């Protein structure tokens, strides 16, 4: 295996700061000198309290917005305007209402000019893999949230992206569905050589999936801690990861780092972080 430090950097954020509304009388510093790197084949997760600028990080990488200062790179190329050629999943599945599930899955293939027949045949394989056979001719509005997010996963993975930018893709799902999709994501990532930047505020999800977890402070967001995660288990099985020795320690440590930031805030915010129960117990 190539030493970690020699692997190519696929995703890089270099000294990025972001101020929203700098032309108004109340500019908000959202990101304060954030730097991070994701090397080839790494799964890196950013956790942090709501509003700390996690989604902003992803919006910057995808080129939706430009940073106030600093630089961003995808696959070695500096981000200028809309980025290209990466897998993109958000909390919202972004399925196009007017396309059937099948043609949502073939969307990227169509963009890349693959002949229709070939695209459909390939889509059929992915639909099957993600448990969507029988739904190919339905419209997104006919599917449950979990099914829709599976379709979004299929749409993402069919392009075999080597860079994945994921912003809380499973946050709106029930616990069971979430575990299943986490596992499917982990398998897809393990099968291809993919570099992943995953955003979540779910600490267990972060620890079970990642090689590295970065903890952000509350706004203005800074990277306040970095944890390399080493678990002796099958990392594509989120349940076995949760039962692996050491898992609990990572989770507790990271929670504490988040807790320092949130202890002064009210229960509403704790609830939104899914921490209320853990703190109550």
């Amino acid at each position, binding site marked *: 295996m190539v030493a970690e430090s020699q692997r190519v950097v696929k995703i890089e954020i270099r000294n990025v700061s972001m101020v929203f509304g700098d032309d108004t009388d109340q500019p908000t510093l959202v990101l304060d000198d954030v730097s991070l790197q994701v090397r080839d084949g790494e799964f890196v997760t950013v956790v942090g309290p709501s509003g700390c600028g996690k989604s902003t990080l992803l919006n910057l990488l995808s080129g939706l917005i430009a940073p106030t200062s600093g630089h961003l790179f995808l696959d070695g190329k500096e981000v200028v305007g*809309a980025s290209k050629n990466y897998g993109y999943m958000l909390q919202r599945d972004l399925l*196009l209402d007017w396309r059937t599930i099948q043609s949502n899955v073939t969307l990227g293939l169509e963009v890349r000019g693959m002949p229709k027949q070939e695209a459909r045949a390939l889509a059929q394989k992915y639909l099957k893999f993600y448990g969507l056979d029988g739904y190919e001719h339905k419209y997104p509005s006919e599917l449950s949230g979990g099914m829709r997010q599976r379709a979004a996963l299929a749409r993402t993975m069919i392009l075999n992206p080597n860079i994945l930018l994921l912003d809380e893709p499973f946050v709106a799902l029930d616990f069971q569905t979430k575990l299943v999709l986490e596992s499917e994501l982990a398998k897809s990532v393990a099968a291809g050589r993919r570099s992943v930047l995953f955003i979540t505020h779910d600490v267990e999800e972060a620890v079970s999936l990642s090689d590295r977890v970065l903890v952000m402070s509350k706004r203005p967001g800074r990277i306040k801690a970095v944890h390399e995660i080493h678990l002796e288990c099958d990392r594509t099985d989120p349940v076995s990861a949760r039962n692996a020795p050491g898992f609990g320690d990572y989770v507790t440590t990271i929670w504490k780092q988040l807790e320092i930031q949130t202890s002064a805030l009210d229960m509403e915010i704790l609830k939104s972080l899914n921490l209320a129960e853990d703190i109550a117990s």
Partner: protein
Amino acid sequence: MVIVLGAWEYGVRTGVINAFLFGSPSGTWHFLVKGTVDGSIFHDMYITSEETALGFLLGNALGATLGLALWYSPFLEKLFTPFILALGSIPIIALAPLVIVWAGTGLASKVLMSTLSVVVVALLAAFDGARSADPLEINLLYSMGARKWQVFRLVVVPSSLTYIFSGLKLAVGFALIGAIIGEFISSSEGLGHAIFIAGNLYNIPKVFASLLATIAIALAFVYVVGRLERLLMPWRKLSS
């Protein structure tokens, strides 16, 4: 237009109550039967429908294309917006004399009136529709490596369909108004002509008969647009 139609319909009902002043249902019926038997009402309906249909198609095609193009090119948007707002604020009847001078007194002038009366509504609907496209969906397309014209075709145009179709429904009325005003100003046939002549002769029942025929045309157009909408947007009926 719906309100105008409603007011006309209310007028017809009022006519039923005040038969002497506002014409009577039997008188209206008489003219409907007479027009049907001698075919004159169908002839007028055909003429007006033709003008309306052509104006509707041209106006919407032009308006929707321009409206979507304004999304495609911010430069065009800056260039055209003032003209569009100006054109939109001119009462269509004020253009009639010019149109007659330029396009004569035949079919072309009515079609042009109808087109002009539709084009701004269609343009604004299409432009609003294009702007309603979800920036995250657009971003998704770029993430797949799409070029701008692909984003336009695969996201912006489909997103704007809902708006374009509400524009189309409004445009039915505007197209009819344009055609009928054209006929009022100068013509020898069509429902607008029939209404104008009958009105001048205080032949109220014939006015109502022609109005009913006009409403029938509007309803037929709205029906066709509705069918087209369901045909082109099959996903819509599922989400409602």
